């Protein structure tokens, strides 16, 4: 990769210009995300850098957009909704998904290809199509639950979104957990059974601790899928179930306010935490399986 000493002038020029091009592309990837962070501390209601900010004058900066976020009841409701819907959807996706992944990794599964195709279909079908289908069906289902069973309308609204988000998150759990199970040594469960442990005990004491990194990163994927998801929520949710991304979407479309940038900065911080966790887990499981030295 490094430039050999016998490189011609043309090769040297290409070597450096290629690195400059790559640098520019990396800048394209990362700068839009970094730019909103300082802008969210803007003392003015502008979406661009004010002269005070460019002079690094403290008067140009403030936390007022964060205060807006924390004091506005709409944003607070959206934050609460996001943290109700995403964790429950994740728990459903992870528990069903892990069981099914263990089933799929057995040596003899009839119709494995078809079953796999069905289970990952929510990831393959474009969101707008899933949302359209869910819009028709879930409104019927919601009416049934409300009229026939007399359930509370608000409660049914949450159930609809949680079920939809769980379905969207399941493919990620299936993919990551089956990938972890590929490296799982089956003789361990046999050894455990040999020593008298039942299937349930074997699962929780032997199998689960070993596949846990895969389960957790699958869960994080499912969480971020639900936490970021807007299209399905807009299609099937009502005003009471407004989530954080939905609130941002309306904000961007209608009355664009700099509070959005404060929220965006908080979300970037959350994604950095999630990314770090997933990376650490991935490296740990690679190290355990002896796939990578570091």
């Amino acid at each position, binding site marked *: *990769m490094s430039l050999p000493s016998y490189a011609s002038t043309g*090769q040297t020029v*290409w070597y450096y210009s*290629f*690195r400059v091009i790559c640098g520019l*592309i*990396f800048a*394209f*990837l*990362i700068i*839009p*995300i970094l*730019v*909103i962070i300082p802008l969210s501390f803007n003392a003015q209601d502008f*979406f*661009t*850098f004010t002269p005070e900010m460019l002079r690094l004058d403290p008067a140009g900066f403030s936390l007022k957009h964060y205060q807006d976020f924390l004091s506005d009841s709409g944003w607070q409701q959206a934050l609460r909704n996001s943290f109700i819907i995403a964790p429950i959807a994740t728990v*459903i996706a992870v528990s069903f998904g892990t069981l*099914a992944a*263990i*089933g*799929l990794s*057995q*040596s*003899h*599964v009839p119709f494995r290809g078809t079953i796999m195709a*069905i*289970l990952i*279909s*929510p990831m*393959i079908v*474009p*969101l*707008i*199509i899933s*949302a*359209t*289908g869910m819009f*028709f*069906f879930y409104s019927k289902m919601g009416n049934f639950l409300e009229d026939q069973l007399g359930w509370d309308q608000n409660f049914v609204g949450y159930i609809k979104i949680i079920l939809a988000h*769980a*379905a969207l998150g*399941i493919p990620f759990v299936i993919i990551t957990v089956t990938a972890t199970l590929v490296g799982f040594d089956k003789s361990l469960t046999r050894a455990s059974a040999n020593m008298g442990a039942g299937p349930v005990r074997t699962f929780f004491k032997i199998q689960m601790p070993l596949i846990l990194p895969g389960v957790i990163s699958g869960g994080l994927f499912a969480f971020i899928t639900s936490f970021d998801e*807007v*299209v399905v929520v*807009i*299609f099937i949710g009502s005003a009471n179930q407004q989530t954080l*991304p939905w609130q*941002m*979407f309306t904000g*961007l*479309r209608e009355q*664009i306010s700099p509070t959005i940038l404060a929220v965006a900065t908080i*979300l*970037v911080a959350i*994604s*950095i935490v*999630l*990314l770090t966790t997933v990376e650490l887990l991935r490296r740990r499981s690679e190290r355990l399986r002896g796939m990578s030295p*570091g």
Partner: protein
Amino acid sequence: MTTSTEPVVAADGLPLKRSLARALRRQKIRALLLIAPLLLFIVLTFLVPIGNMLLRSVDNAIVEETIPRTVEALRGWDEAGDVPPGEDVFEALYADMLIATDAKRHTRLGSRLNYESSGMSSLFRKTNERRLGRFELEQPLAPQFEDIDEDWITLETWRVIKSNSDPVTAGYFLAAMDLRATPTGIEPVSDLQAIYVKLFVRTMILSVTITAMCFLLGYPIAWILANLPSRSANMLLILVLLPFWTSLLVRTSAWKVLLQQQGVINDLLVWVGVLADDNRLAMINNATGTVIAMTHILLPFMILPLYSVMKTISPTYLRAAKSLGATDWTAFWRVYFPQSVPGIGAGAILVFILAIGYYITPELVGGTDGTFISNRIYYHISSSLNWGLAAALATILLAMVLALYWVYDRLVGIDNVKLG
């Protein structure tokens, strides 16, 4: 008796073959039992809704359910002729409309038929309970319907009703392809109303452009990540993964901030002196905005599969090619590039399929000429309430995506798709 004919038995005395078969069957059942809850869950929460949508795109039961007697009476009427239907049809219509207006279902039928021919909605709304109550039943009914609206005795009205009396219709699909059914056959709608084919074509063109941009920008990045020492590659990989994990809304709002007329990029260009202050670039609320923002959003989906394929290409091949006298370009083009094709395939299909169904970003930065078919689907769901047409548009989109998967499976094999 020789030992060779004696069946081998397991510990419990059963023949070994049978015992093994039973164990295998048990194993299969156990595997299926583990999968069953999830399979059921996905079928109920995902596949049934999609199937329901497919049915809805052809469902037309509303006409037959609302005015069943009229539909029955119309069977004897010749829609190709030039006389409106006779008194029997109007008697049936009167009976149907009495029930329909009582249940307040006539306006729904009106809005349904309005998709086929404008004016039907107001026709059915006018024919309300009050007007029907004033009918004199001893007199012929046709002229009394004519009093409400003369459209009731025009051929066009009855042709529309008759052609929609089947419980299944191709009307939504025809509308989704800018066509309409007339008594003389299927015709294209007038140029002013024709939008869907144009929108599908635009969705395709923009998606291809975005995929091409992602390829152009993603290939060098994947290459440099795969060829740097692993410590620096891991550092740079974070620059790819952070956008991947960052909320879509965050990235879209970032582009909105950057690309506005009073935004950061325009300010910078004016400050540098490239642009005059009154000549700021319009980079948002048009197709340019959509392409820039979506390329940024989908770029990680191109880089990650490319990177995972390129990591497996050994650098010795390139060295071998060069030592055999190939120039840098020949070595790359004839040796390295063909080996990276599975990664390009995986990345391109991923990006293209994600792009073709995108809704949020085109809605926020697309303006009028950067919107996709998905924006039209949402419009029909939320504003025009023409749900059948929305379902038909979504079904066509789904068919396109599945066709792409099929082609892709033939060319590269779906198993070769690698996610990071």
